[in-house]
Every structure is written in C-alpha cells, then in structure tokens.
C-alpha cells in the first residue's frame, strides 16, 4: 500500500436499467481497500441493484443492462475481455437470506466454490481456514458432515460467508446479510464484518442505520436511483451535507 491508497472499486457514471426503467443514475463512487462501505437508503432506491452491478449479477436478470464503468483494481469489469464467471470468484457475495445448498453437508457447502470451479487444493485446510475466518469453526467442527440445513439461521449465514471466503475473493459484497436474523445472530455477523475488514474490501447494503453506523468506515446514501451523498460514516450520520441525507438518517422518511 502506498501512502495515498488507490480505490479498489471505482464506479464511474454507472447507470443500471431493467429494460427501459432506469434503476441507477450516473453513480460515481470509490471504495478503498480494506474498508467497509455501507450503502443505505429507502426500499427501491437501487442499493441492491448497485451491489449486483459490482459482480455482474445484475445482468443475469432478463432485460437488465448497464452503462458507465466499474473499475476493480483499475480494471474495467465490463470490458469485453472480462469473463463474468472469473470476476465473480474475485468478488464474493452474501445474500439477504441464508442460502446454503440444501443437498450438501456443512463441509461440502464451504468446499462447493472450489469443487464446482475445479480448483484442486487441500479442501480440508481451506474449509477449516474459511470457517475460522467466518467465526463458525468452533460451532461446527464436530458436525461437518451434517446437512447445512441443520444449522441455525445465523450459523447458516456465517456458513454462506465461509463459502464465499473459500474461493479467496478480494471484495465481499453483502446484501442485507443480517435482515433475516435475530438480534444475537445479527451482533455476531456485525462483529465478523469488523474482523473481515482486516483482509477484504466490503460493501454492505443495509436497511438498518445503526448497523451502518456500527460496522462501516464509509457510508453512501442512495435515493431514487441516485447517489445523494457519500462520505466518512461519522460525517454522514452526524453532519450530512445534503438535507435529504439528514432527513433520512434522522428518520424523517424511509
């Protein structure tokens, strides 16, 4: 790292469409390496669409397109020579509801990204490392062979995080990772995000503003498909530049 850290993710004039509907309008945004960027805003403001543009999951929806640029490590991920399949190994994703593979065991779930991608490695080592990073190892080390569905909701979500980490991404995208969990499981996930920040660049979409304030270094506020404001989390929450941001973070709407 140089003294002036380069943005790991640089978004330039990004617009996203569902057929003719414009879900994102000219978004410009930088995410620094090993920082947590929280994306907040009311429902339907384009937060999830923004996140899904960062690993090219957006284009999997029929009729979905984008314009503009997304640079990861300075490389345009929408360039013609970029294979979205390979890109998604560098940019991991965790979804709103825990979605472990129901036919696989705990172990197989974590190893699935490696096995399905034909990556030959010592699976056991990688599974243990990933589960430890996801703070789940101690709870599941004696039941690796059990069905992933036998875990609790919070454990399943950490399993999904371990599964994403096992393919060694640089960036981790999280789409409201705790919104389907109870408060204790949510606290564990938040603690985990603060630990993961040491190694990964994290972009997290959240409905919960306290959560954004607790876990993130930077906060971006989206409203009706536009990026209204992006800045240091303390500044966005305590001294926002835009009145719309202030209205939202103080609970006047949304």
């Amino acid at each position, binding site marked *: 790292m140089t003294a002036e850290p380069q943005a790991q993710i640089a978004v330039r004039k990004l617009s996203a469409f569902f057929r003719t509907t414009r879900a994102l309008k000219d978004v410009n945004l930088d995410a620094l390496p090993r920082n947590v960027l929280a994306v907040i805003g009311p429902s339907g403001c384009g937060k999830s669409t923004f996140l899904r543009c960062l*690993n090219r*999951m957006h284009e*999997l929806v*029929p009729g979905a397109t984008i314009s503009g640029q997304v640079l990861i490590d300075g490389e345009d991920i929408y360039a013609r020579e970029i294979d979205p*399949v*390979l*890109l*998604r*190994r*560098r940019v*991991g*994703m965790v*979804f709103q*509801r825990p*979605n*472990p*593979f*129901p*036919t696989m065991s705990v172990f197989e779930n974590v190893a*699935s*990204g490696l096995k*399905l*991608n034909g990556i030959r490695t010592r699976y056991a080592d990688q599974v243990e490392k990933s589960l430890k990073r996801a703070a789940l190892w101690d709870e599941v080390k004696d039941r690796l062979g059990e069905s992933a569905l036998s875990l609790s909701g919070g454990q399943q979500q950490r399993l*999904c995080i371990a*599964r*994403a980490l096992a*393919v060694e991404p640089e960036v981790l995208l999280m789409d409201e990772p705790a919104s389907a969990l109870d408060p204790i499981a949510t606290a564990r996930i938040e603690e985990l995000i603060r630990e993961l920040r040491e190694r990964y660049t994290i972009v997290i979409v959240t409905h919960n503003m306290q959560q954004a304030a607790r876990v993130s270094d930077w906060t971006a506020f989206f409203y009706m498909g536009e990026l209204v404001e992006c800045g240091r989390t303390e500044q966005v929450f305590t001294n926002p530049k835009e009145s719309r941001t202030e209205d939202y973070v103080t609970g006047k709407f949304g």
Partner: protein
Amino acid sequence: MSSAPISKRYIARRAVNLTMTLLCGAAVLIALIPLISVFWLVLSNGIAGLSWSFFTALPTPVGEPGGGVGNGIVGTLYLVGLACLIGLPVGIGTGLFLAERGDGQIGNAVRFVAEVLSGVPSIVIGIVAYGLVVMPMHRFSALAGGVALSLLMIPTLARTTEEMVRLVPRALREAALALGVPQWKTSLRVVLRTALGGIVTAILLAISRAAGETAPLLFTSLNNQYWNLQPDQPTASLTVQIFNYAISPYEDWHRKAWSAALVLLLFVMLTNLVSRFLARNRLQRAR
C-alpha cells in the same frame, strides 16, 4: 320483520345442499366401481396361477402343464431399461433446457411439441418406431420396443423435470453463480441435484406407465418364446404375452393371462407406491 319466508328459503337451501352432496358422493362411488372391480377381477382370477415357477419358467405349449412368464418379466424390465437409457437423458435434458432457457420462442415451441407428443396415441408411437427402427433393420427387435417406449416417456418426463427444476429457489442459483460457477455447472451440479427427488418420482411414474404399454410393442419388440437379452432380437414382454394369451381359444392360457395381468398390476402398483413414498419424504424434509 318477516321470518317465515327467510326460513323457507333456508330449508330450500339446505335441501339443495344435501342433494348436491349426495350427487357428488354417488359420482365418487361410480368412479370407484371400475377401479375396485378391475383389481378384484384380476386378483381373484389370477392369484390361483401364481407360483414360483410362474415367475421363473418359460411359457409352455398349449396343453402342457406348468410353465410361466419368466421371459416376459425379464423382457419387460429389459425393454423398460432400454427405454430409460434413451428416454431419461433426452427427457431430463429437455426439461432442464425448458426450465433454464425456455422462456423464448424456442422454449414455447418445444413445450408445444411435447404437449402434442404426450397426446399422441401409443399405437401411433409404435408405428413411428416401426418405421424408424424395424423397417431399416428388417426385423423386430428389443431396440425398436425400447425406442417406442422412450418416445412415450420423453414428453411427460420433460414437463415434470421442468416443473421440478423451476421449483428450485432462485437464491440457490444465485449462490452458485456468485461463487463464480459457470451457468452450465450451476444447472447440472446445483439446480438439478436439488430437484433430484422430484425427478426420481417422475422417472418412476414414467417407468410404471411404460411397463404397462402393449400397443407400441406389438409390432416393434413383437414376442419371443425364449429368453432374450439381444437388442436386435424380438423380445417377450408381459403385456404382449397377456394379449396373446387372452385372445387365444384355450382355457389354460386365459388363466395364465389373468396371472400375468396380476403380476403387471402388482409391479405398477409397487412403483407407484415407492414414488409416492419418496414424494412424501421429500415434502416432509422440505418443511
């Protein structure tokens, strides 16, 4: 307030309700009569002829005691096996295509063709197999019978597979894609694997249906008095044996037809029961 007319109307309503309920009950009873009588007739006429040798022995000529339908049972299993070999990959593959890529015009066309094909009478399917396999090979064969049965299996198998695959939550597909798994591998190793329980049920139902077909076998696999596991030779099957025994003028063969029918009925019921059991297990696990 006049309560008299209301109560009169109320009585009329109750009467109509009762009549309709009774009519529905009567309809159910009428529907059950053929089902129960089929089972009763086959069981009462066929049970006497069942013995160990009936399952294992070759048929005997008229007048000679003993003998069985062993070659027919083996032949039916063999024909169904051949049909599965051809029909399962094609049917399941088509279903997977329809579910994953079938939203466009090609998908609609394939779906339409499958629907038409599943409505084609089985004797017509037999003629098609005759033209496709028997005529070029100049002989009746197990292969021709297998092709005919596979043509019957493919459309229903494709539609059921499509439905089962569509039931797999989108979230699982996305989970795999987000791990950088290519689309085709996601379809085969995650989506298909998750839908497997339902597909196995569909396969068993298709097998039990194919095992009971006679018409498409009459001029494809024909019949055989002996054991045969050569794909290019005529082959016995339970259904064609039943047909031949039943239209014969001999009392002894009629009894054998009943017993063979009972064997077939039991096989079909067993496959249905197994598939129901699997389906129920799957539902309970999903809950």
